[in-house]
């Protein structure tokens, strides 16, 4: 059982805090939500949510017995119910007669994950928030692997075509009509994954069924592995416009299935961050101003440094501080 060090992932931490913001906005009108998550051994997001919303009832679903025991050790609030159960077995009896928040936080990508996403969309009550996080890269693209082999006799084009055909066969019913091998590459795959999820959502809640999945935010980031994250609300058709209005001024919104935003905050020292925050927020952040006041590059060259500082200017509010502490 391997668990990534969730607590040391700044981009993931930002994704978590963005969920907190979404919940702050939707809970302004109604606080009767219950959170369901797949928290991992340290229950990171549960701790964060309980800090922000003290009265928030939460349920953690964990299939692995050892991890479940570890979760018991890390249980952070009385409001958190821990269940030793898989999401799919939980959903078998879930009635959906409540406003819920589901975060399907997966470390990988399989068709089963998308099917669970569709099941959740189908089951949850109106005005429920559904967030899904998936691995958004292929570690085994044949041309990238084979380029490391000096004298390889295979026809690389043929191998790539077979790889694409296998991918297409796996997701056939929810793929956009035209998918190319290049779309499987790291740079383009988050966009393709979003299209797949959009089609999956529209197939589960088709036009005319009275309910829709209204996207609110989507992003991709890489702490080590590239991940894609989509958050939206399942609501009556008529309520979708109301959600669009409520999120219209949220700077990182995605209400129309636009391309996902990249989160890639730079590694900065605490001293640098305190210095930069004196100059934030900016009205129209570009990264140039921060680069100028800093007076040196934090990446290879000025454009790369400006890009990273733009990321910082966009997400600095959500960037966690990691510090060494002594527990006494």
């Amino acid at each position, binding site marked *: 059982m391997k668990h990534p060090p969730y607590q040391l992932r700044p981009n993931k931490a930002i994704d978590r805090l963005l969920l907190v913001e979404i919940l702050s906005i939707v809970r302004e009108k109604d606080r009767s939500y219950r959170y369901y998550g797949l928290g991992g051994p340290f229950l990171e997001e549960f701790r964060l949510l309980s800090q922000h919303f003290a009265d928030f009832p939460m349920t953690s679903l964990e299939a692995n*017995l050892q991890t479940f025991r570890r979760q018991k050790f890390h249980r952070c609030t009385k409001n958190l119910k821990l269940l030793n159960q898989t999401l799919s077995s939980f959903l078998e009896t879930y009635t959906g007669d409540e406003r819920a928040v589901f975060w399907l936080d997966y470390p990988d990508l399989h068709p089963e994950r998308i099917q669970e996403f569709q099941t959740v969309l189908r089951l949850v009550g109106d005005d429920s928030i559904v967030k899904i996080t998936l691995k958004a890269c292929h570690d085994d693209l044949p041309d990238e692997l084979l380029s490391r082999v000096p004298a390889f006799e295979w026809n690389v084009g043929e191998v790539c075509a077979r790889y694409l055909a296998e991918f297409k066969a796996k997701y*056939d*019913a929810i793929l956009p009509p035209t998918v190319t091998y290049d779309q499987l590459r790291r740079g383009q795959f988050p966009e393709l994954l979003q299209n797949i999820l959009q089609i999956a959502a529209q197939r589960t809640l088709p036009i005319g069924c009275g309910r829709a999945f209204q996207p609110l935010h989507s992003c991709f980031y890489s702490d080590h592995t590239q991940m894609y994250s989509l958050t939206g609300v399942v609501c009556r058709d008529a309520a979708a416009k109301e959600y669009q209005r409520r999120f219209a001024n949220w700077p990182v919104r995605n209400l129309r299935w636009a391309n996902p935003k990249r989160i890639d905050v730079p590694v900065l020292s605490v001293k640098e961050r305190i210095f930069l925050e004196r100059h934030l927020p900016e009205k129209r952040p570009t990264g140039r101003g921060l680069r100028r006041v800093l007076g040196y590059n934090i990446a290879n060259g000025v454009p790369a440094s400006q890009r990273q500082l733009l990321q910082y200017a966009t997400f600095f509010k959500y960037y966690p501080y990691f510090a060494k502490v002594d527990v006494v």
Partner: protein
Amino acid sequence: MTQKAKPDGTIYEPVNAFPVKSFFVTMLTRDISLPDAILDLLDNCVDGILRTEAKPAASFAGYEAKMTFDKSHFMIHDNCGGIPWSLKDYAFRMGRPPDQPQQKLPMVGVYGIGMKRAIFKMGERCLISTQSGPHNYEVKISPAWIEDQVDWSLPASAGTSRMKEDGTTIYISHLNEGIANTLGDGAKAFHTELARRIAEQYAFIIAKGFKVSINGDRVEPRPTRLVLTPHERTKKAAPTISPFIYRAKIDGVDVFLAIGLTRAIPTAEEVAAEDSGTHVRYKSLSAGWTVVCNERAVLYCDRTELTGWGEDEIPRYHTQFIAISGIVEFRSNDASKLPTTTTKRGIDASSPLYLQVKSKMREGLRLFTAYTYWWKGHEAEARAMIKKGEELTFAELRSRAEKLPMRKVSRVPGGVQFKPKLPRPKTQESNLRRITFERPLGEIRAVGAYILDDAEASPSRIGEECFKRALREANK
């Protein structure tokens, strides 16, 4: 004839049975789904090519249909020859006029309703611009025309400009509410669904060069490929994996049937996963029957009684038969003889022609379902055999069939068939036995975590590992 007034003053006059437009606009359109309506428009494009070529087209290269849509419009533009002015009555009247001669071409349009029904399904305003040789004209449908219950004539006028090639453009706006939502907010899923339907149902025509695009994305065909292992002409034919093929001409309709294997038979694990319902499938199955009428698939991968599954001692479709796929093609210059329903997306199951051919479909099914039973427990061996074969498209099979030793079918004059001698395992009785038992999921996960360090490992893998360990102990 007007009759005398009755004592209460009622006069029994001839009653008005004149059709009302709302029947065509709101009722007839309920019988068809949006993708089917769009496929009707595409059928018209293909019929246009056949009229242009004036003979069954061997190649459709150079012809194309482009569709675009969003929440405010739907448009289909083709270069398939346009609508000749002489066919205006057939094209624009509600139903085929009785004096309209049937064209001796393998088209699918019979009832003269498809285009109009598709337009009314989608919206209230439409402009049809067409050019066919010297004729270049436009026909308009407007909300006012739809509301007017008396005037049935559609305004036509000379086209505003010459087109580069003969063809037709249909532009529909003022979309009905549900349609606007589907083509607007729901466009992504609809686009995928429509592209899949076209790729399946027009696979034969697209493979012959016809191009179809949706919002700029080209649709690629999805042909079914059947496996054929090398066959030698010998007196006593050696067993080969080859499709069962039947060919006949019945009442002016050419029939060509092929059924075979698309892949190796499934492993026990694959069958168990499918049966347990835990198996996720976004992958489309090629198992089942595809029925093609004049090159357009009217039924795709059907696995129901409609195509012979589960009747007359043929087992119902089950995952074990996932490798079995068949295609039946009906071709006729008289579309009314084809065994299709009025929507052209289904089979008329009571058609005598279809019933006759269906008995051959069952014969093929019987052969290949038996094959899967023979090889149960010998899956690896069966898989190796399949690997040696070629995967042939239907068109390739047709030409390859010429070389196969076809035999006459006694009951059908001119009917011939090739019934392959399928290989059987050397030892009929496998010495393998299946071990099957059920345990609670939690216990399976616990054992998986304990022996494989993987709680998510498949139950069969966990079971196999347990057995191996026990066998090692037993053999010590």
